């Protein structure tokens, strides 16, 4: 394990905030994308059925 000394809290805090924000952004992007794809497919299917 890397030795961070007296700055362990500072460095790990900075990396923790960054990872949390980046993972949150990626998760939101994927979730919104999947939701929209599903809604569009359902709409296209419905309109295809109804002509």
């Amino acid at each position, binding site marked *: 394990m890397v030795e961070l000394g007296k700055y*362990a809290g*500072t*460095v790990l805090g900075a990396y923790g905030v960054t990872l949390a924000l980046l993972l949150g*952004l990626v998760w939101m992007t994927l979730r919104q*994308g999947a939701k*929209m794809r599903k*809604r569009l497919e359902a709409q*296209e299917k419905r*309109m295809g059925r109804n002509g």
Partner: protein
Amino acid sequence: MSIWEYANPKKFMQTSSWALPWVTGLAVVTLLTGLVWGFFFTPDDFRQGATVKIIYIHVPSAMMAINAWAMMLVTSLIWLIRRHHVSVLAAKAAAPIGMTMTLIALFTGAIWGQPMWGTWWAWDPRLTSFLILFLFYLGYIALWEAVDDPDTAADLTSVLCLVGSVFALLSRYAVLFWNQGLHQGASLSLDKEEHVADVFAWPLWISMAGFVLLFITLVLLRTRTEIRSRRLRALEARERMA
């Protein structure tokens, strides 16, 4: 073949679908390489100690905060001049990513500043212009949500983007314009003497490449979602009219 072909949503969807796995893979590999190398395999700085490891997230996120706005400026101008929908949807897609990058830069800067400067925050030219840039991102996203008509929203947000570009530029050059405050100048430079030793510079360059690739990946994904959303609205309107 012309770049304007990608203004066609169908062409954009085809090309981005092909490119996404490659860009995503490259983004993951470069980000992991840069961050793992920087965090685990670089020495402490003689003055800053282990806090120097924050450079591998602070500098790339600050760079992307400004570059995301620059990308939004270019795509907004394309919308205002040529009225290509994909272009303005890419700007809309980039805004939450740029906002997150600005937030990361502000947070990591504050966390880093506390032990180095003895304060979490100072009304320093670069820090202040970054805070204003963050507020511009918030305003840009809010304006998209506040206006119902998509073309009107695109026009208004594009103009806001032009205005906000002043602060994106100030964020970049604040240290040079006002030679005061706590924040240092550029950590890396292609045309001047480098300020960061090689042992820190290489993982930093790789981290920066990783952040750029992550940005491209997320912009492609979010633009695809925006294009689908616009198509869904068009289909719903057609169904209501029938």
